């Protein structure tokens, strides 16, 4: 009796970690997409992307808290907040791009990188100044409870998160691979000069890329906030680096790669935290980043950058 019980516990733990990993992986995938699309199109590591994620989280808290206080049902709150916050973050990212990245498009890579770093610090501290240094909590009435599958507890929150993530990823896939705009995006990512020559407005496409990436990160921010119950001004930094690791793992510039990379990094982090050590869990993502860049810089699915510009 006893050995069978232990074995079932192992399976339970494993399944639980699997569920957690999928949830976290989806979040990483959403943020990684923003990094990968921007890098694919203008070869810039958008350090400010993590802060957009945090800004989205805050926007979500604010909108949802206000709407829940007004008495709207949770799902309506979530839906409206998602749409509004995603629009806001998209505009924010486009503003940052127009103001800071666009004038530096012909400068050296170092200049743009430093300006991105500067914007990241600027936005993070802006959040801290306007929102305070303490966590801001989500209202408790948000989706509670869960159910069990084979001994692993799957909360409704996780179902909602995975559902929204899958919907967004499918939507993005459809946008990039099945529409004309998506084709323009892929063309600009492949060769900016030539696509401009065939009549694609590169600036507009770049702005659109930033906007879409930011919207996805915003959704991720809202969901992470709901999952952990609160948001902080600096939650964007570490998650940003991990999401970039995911993007690199999957192959920078490669959209499917980013999705896959996010899932893998999420899984590895959850399993490593569960089975090896939870204090060093951030370290695993960094180690993967360094390992991938050292041994396999093009990532799992191959990179997809505009290599016509030296």
């Amino acid at each position: 009796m006893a050995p069978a019980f232990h074995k079932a516990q192992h399976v339970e733990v494993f399944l639980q970690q699997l569920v957690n990993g999928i949830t976290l992986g989806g979040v990483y995938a959403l943020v990684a997409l923003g990094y990968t699309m921007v890098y694919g199109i203008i070869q810039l590591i958008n350090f400010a992307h993590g802060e957009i994620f945090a800004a989205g989280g805050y926007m979500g808290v604010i909108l949802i808290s206000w709407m829940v206080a007004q008495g709207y049902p949770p799902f309506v709150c979530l839906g409206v907040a998602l749409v509004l916050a995603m629009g806001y973050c998209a505009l924010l990212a486009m503003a940052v791009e127009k103001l800071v990245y666009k004038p530096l498009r012909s400068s050296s890579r170092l200049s743009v990188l430093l300006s991105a770093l500067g914007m990241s610090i600027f936005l993070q501290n802006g959040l801290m100044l306007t929102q305070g240094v303490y966590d801001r909590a989500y209202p408790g009435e948000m989706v509670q409870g869960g159910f069990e599958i084979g001994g692993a507890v799957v909360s409704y929150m996780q179902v909602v998160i995975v559902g929204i993530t899958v919907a967004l990823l499918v939507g993005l896939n459809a946008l990039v691979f099945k529409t004309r705009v998506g084709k323009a995006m892929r063309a600009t990512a492949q060769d900016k000069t030539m696509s401009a020559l065939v009549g694609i407005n590169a600036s507009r496409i770049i702005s659109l890329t930033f906007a879409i990436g930011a919207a996805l990160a915003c959704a991720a921010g809202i969901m992470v906030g709901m999952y952990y119950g609160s948001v902080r001004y600096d939650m964007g930094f570490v998650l940003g680096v991990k999401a970039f690791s995911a993007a690199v793992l999957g192959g920078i510039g490669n959209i499917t790669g980013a999705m896959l990379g996010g899932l893998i990094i999420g899984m590895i982090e959850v399993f490593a935290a569960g089975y090896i050590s939870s204090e060093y869990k951030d370290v695993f993502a960094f180690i993967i980043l360094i390992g991938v860049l050292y041994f396999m810089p093009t990532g799992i699915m191959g990179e997809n950058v505009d290599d016509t510009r030296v």
Partner: protein
Amino acid sequence: MLWLYVLLWPLLGIKPEGLEFAASTAIWAKVAVVSAILLALWQLKGRGVFDFASRPAQALSQALGKATGRVATWIWLVLVFAGAVVFPLVTERYAHDVAISVLVYICLGLGLNVVVGMAGLLDLGYIAFYGVGAYTYALLSVHFGLSFWLCLPIAGAFSACAGCIIGYPTLRMRGDYLAIVTLGFGEIVRIVLNNWMSLTHGPNGILGIKPPGAYWWQDGHIEHIWLGSLEQFYYVILGLAVCTIVAVHRLNHSRIGRAFEAVREDQTAAELMGVNTLGIKLLAYSLGAIFGGLAGAFFAARMRFVSPESFTFIESAMVLAMVVLGGMGSIPGVILGALALIALPEIFRGFELYRMFVFGGVMAMMMLFRPKGLWPAKRMGVRSEERD
């Protein structure tokens, strides 16, 4: 351009606490006003409104330049050095504290300058070397009771090893990836310091580090005293900073310095001309790390306590901001940058919270308007078309 501002500011400002706008709008209103004034000044300057003042100002600065140019550089250096030596005698405790901070950051900035400015390797995890140096001295002092002066080279050696370890995987990477990998390394070092309880006591830090000792005249005969006062610390760090400045300057004007510049400008061409690019890059990391380690050991000795909180990414970003603001690769520029970023906020103490916020904005704006920094570096090599 103006409509862009209109787009940005309301958006960044709409972050209310539960849909009240009070506190956040106040902050963004201040920022908006300041930037509107700056933008207005910029536009006016473009339209030549200030010409009546700028032309005599230019003539004045040219005349000053000629006058100061006649005096040899070394006289200026002696004057500055004399000023630095006399400084503690004419100011009070608070100024000593600020001056010690400035000098520590000058050492750090010069070390990062070797990596970023001279060799062109964007290192975002530089603070890891600072931490390695600090913890090396802390552990050696607490466990073995070794003296500060003995531990200084040991801390430098450990930092150099850390530099090699951190630099090695990045040797073949592109510039962007280099930045994020070094950032990752910096974070790894911080997390390890924070969690390795048995060695570093984790977040509790290490207490009871001995300050530097010296032999000095005391009551008529030479005996061993512990250097405890701020003035004594100031002279120690002044000596360290002067050594760093001299070392970096000599490095700049040496064969290695020229190799750094070659690797920075065009790695492939340098490799073709026979420069051992990979070895030079490793050397850059190690040498830069040594200065960081020395500064770290001093930091541990001065604070008598180290904890992982002093070695976060924000510190790294601040040192980078100093180097970028002052001018990458330029020694007086980095000194100016350190002064600007440490001393100026002390004057504006009331705006303490806004410090990093302004730094971020300034770093981004610097890239737009003056990417070469406040005091740009002079090239070491001479281009063939410039020579004749």
